[in-house]
């Protein structure tokens, strides 16, 4: 067969796409989002390296000194000599250290629950989108049912049944969050599965599971990443609320929400720092994540050119 390699009328092939680099270049155009990312990065690093950055391990009772209890910010420890930057609680626990250790629990719960919810929700949503018909109707009615309950009520009910514990909180969060992912995944999946490349794969006799996994899923990822980011923030604040209400994480593994709750009783005695500083830390974390999420939604939105 004669080979004409040069398609004489071919348009110049586009430049090689570098999705990650393009994404980064587009992302940094918003200064607020860059700030959000920097703050988030700092928070995550602080949480990961908490033992190196803190003067005491707030949950090692050997390191606490009851004599240092209820010190305002800036006071120095009598026994150890270091400075309590943000004050101490009634047991002499350094609030600054407690916040960094609390961030580990809060971020951990938030990320693990959002990722698990994304896995469950996206799987069901894409399955519904690809299969259609009764399977889709059944899954989507379940989603509607789920979304019609107030989230906090649902989570409270689940935790009332299961009891306290980090694993239980994660489970509760997954159960209240999967529906959002399922709905988004189905929406994107339906658009994608009507495209010709999905039909072409079907015509080539490629098994359904492979079409969903290898073709449908990769093309639906960007919007799911955006949802996942926002849901991490939602999960963190929900967990804080649950912990504040006393049904969340146990006292042995305190998150930011539990710190706020513990300090709350001293609020009106003028010992504001026990509750306010963990609250500010929570606020900054959530704002930073939302800044990043919003920018990602702008950049990854497929209709942004239109």
């Amino acid at each position, binding site marked *: *067969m*004669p*080979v*004409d*390699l040069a*398609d*004489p*009328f*071919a*348009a*110049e*092939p*586009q430049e*090689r*796409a570098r999705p990650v680099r393009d994404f980064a270049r587009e992302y940094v155009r918003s200064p607020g989002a860059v700030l959000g990312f920097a703050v988030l990065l700092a928070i995550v690093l602080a949480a990961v390296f908490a033992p190196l950055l803190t003067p005491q391990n707030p949950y090692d009772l050997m390191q606490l000194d009851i004599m240092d209890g209820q010190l305002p910010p800036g006071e120095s420890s009598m026994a150890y000599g270091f400075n309590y930057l943000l004050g101490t609680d009634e047991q002499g626990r350094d609030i600054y250290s407690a916040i960094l250790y609390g961030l580990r629990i809060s971020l951990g719960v938030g990320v693990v629950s959002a990722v698990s919810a994304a896995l469950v929700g996206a799987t069901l949503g894409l399955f519904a989108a690809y299969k259609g018909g009764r399977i889709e109707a059944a899954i989507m009615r379940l989603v509607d049912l789920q979304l019609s309950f107030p989230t906090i009520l649902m989570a409270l009910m689940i935790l009332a049944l299961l009891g306290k514990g980090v694993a239980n909180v994660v489970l509760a969060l997954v159960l209240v969050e999967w529906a959002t992912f399922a709905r988004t995944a189905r929406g994107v999946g339906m658009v994608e599965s009507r*495209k*010709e*490349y999905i*039909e*072409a*794969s*079907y*015509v*080539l*006799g*490629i*098994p359904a599971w*492979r079409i969903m996994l*290898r*073709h449908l899923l*990769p*093309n639906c990822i960007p919007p799911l990443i955006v949802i996942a980011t926002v849901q991490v923030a939602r999960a963190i604040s929900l967990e804080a609320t649950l912990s504040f209400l006393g049904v969340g994480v146990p006292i042995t593994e305190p998150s930011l929400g539990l710190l706020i709750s513990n300090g709350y009783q001293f609020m009106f005695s003028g010992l504001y720092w026990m509750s306010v500083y963990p609250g500010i830390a929570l606020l900054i974390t959530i704002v930073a994540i939302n800044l990043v999420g919003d920018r990602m939604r702008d950049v990854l939105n497929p209709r942004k050119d239109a």
Partner: protein
Amino acid sequence: MDRPDMSIRALPVTPILEVRNLTTSFRGSKGWSPVVRDLSFHIAPRETLAVVGESGSGKSVTALSVMRLLNPRSARIEGEILFGGTSLPGLSDSQIRGYRGREMSMIFQDASLNPVYDVGFQLMETLRIKRGLTQRDAKREAVQLLEKVRIPSAKKRLDDFPHELSGGMRQRVAIAMALACKPQLLIADEPTTALDVTIQAQIVELIKQLQDEERMSVMFITHDMGVVAEIADRTAVMYRGDLVETGRTADVFAAPRQPYTRALLASIPRLGSMNGTDLPQPFALIDHRSGEPVAAAEAEVAAPPASAAPRLSVKDVSVRFDVRGGLLGGVTGRVHAVEDVSFDIAPGETLSLVGESGSGKSTTARAIMGLNRVRQGRITMGDLVAAGEGQAPRSALCDRLQMIFQDPFASLDPRMRVGDLLAEPLRVHGTAQGEALRTRVGELLRDVGLSPEMAARFPHQFSGGQRQRIAIARALALDPELVVADEAVSALDVSVKAQIINLMMEIQRARGLSYLFISHDMAVVERISHRVAVMYLGRIVEIGPRRAVFENPGHAYTRQLMSAVPVPDPARRHLRRGLAVDEIRSPVRPLGYQPPPTRMIELSPGHFVLDEGDAAQPQAKGRPADLAKA
């Protein structure tokens, strides 16, 4: 100076629009890159200039530059644009707004109407704002405008919303809107590209007549040389941002000076060029740089063996879609998309299905591929049932029956490398593994005229034509007996179209492949087919050997379809036809509608025409909503 008329006539005509050394650049990642380079042209009063070129040639950008519709932050315009002596680039935004719509108007490919307002409101809005008419005057003027663009019962149409009108009618409304202020220049950017041939012919005719009546100039942007030949006084050919050639249309067609123009003209399928021959024949292409003929296979494709059993057999197939409506979502009617269709395809044969949108040709293809459910009848591929009762699993059929899709930008998974795309079916069906797999992928790429190294690239790194080659390679991966090509070349530029068709014929000769070729383009169909079936409203109205159908069409619709095809020859410009405003009828039928039986009359051996007594006339016409009331 008592006779000013005379003195004006004596002077050389001042052009309405004069563009000198126009360069338009877009901001990219590497700074400004020119999309249109050093372009100069002019349009005289009452003249039609066609700007013709393939995608990426910069023809639309030129029009947008003239209208100043480009975002100044991302696009830069250099050079001079004079409109009736005024320099447009120097004007302020509010000044240019006075020109837009009033002095020069633009119509686009898909009629740009706002879907939430009715047609009358949108027309009257333009009239009130741009011409300062009162509500009453605006309404009367709107009716007149709709009548001017030959919309039947114009008064009633004022209350219609854009979605209630067909594509052709919408384009008429858009033209009416553009003419609202009697502009001196109408810029039409691919106004007929999204329309069916018969509707396209009507719109082209309409623009021609309106130009006469309104005494305006037209800048007609198109990729279709046939339309150019029909409408243009002068033609400008563009290629990748450069003006290649301009001249009187007749001269450009008769004696093109540039190799690119020659190559472009050589690649246009011309209806009637195959008269007197029986077999499909590739295009004789010309290289666009040297102007020399491309050494392509010129041999015709052999006729299929006369006695062989058919490969694909479609028997009495009907496909219907439910139309739901009402409070409870009950079925209120059915789209009879395919009605009682039967045909066979022999080994090595190409059967083409032609028809306009809504004729059911794509639905037929999709039914064969198992993408649409068959309501009645049976499709068999050798000893296997492809659709209908006792349907074989897809995995058993996919090495006999494959498909090429219309849009080469949508039919390849954007996240997979070309090599993986081609290897996937082979791997899934266990045809080849490891080193053998890689060799096979290389062979496939070479078979479609690409190089094996391209396997490592992603689809978006290829041009449209190359992508369609990849799609063909993938369809061939499992070595099928029959390939369904659903509008496989419709989305491609003319020259690429011709190459892909040549490639398909080449593959057919090498492998003895059969094609079911689906297209709305009669001229392309004439090139590639052994046999042709014409579909209208879900039925085959005529089927037979290509030569018989094209040279001796038996059905009125076939003749209508053929006369609507624009002829790329200015010398044979159609005589003014009466302006038909026919619309393609709706295949929506009420519940319980019984289609009349299909009887075919044999005109000559193998050439059948649908026998339509008076029973076959579609009973229901109009929208589903009307049917529900009935």
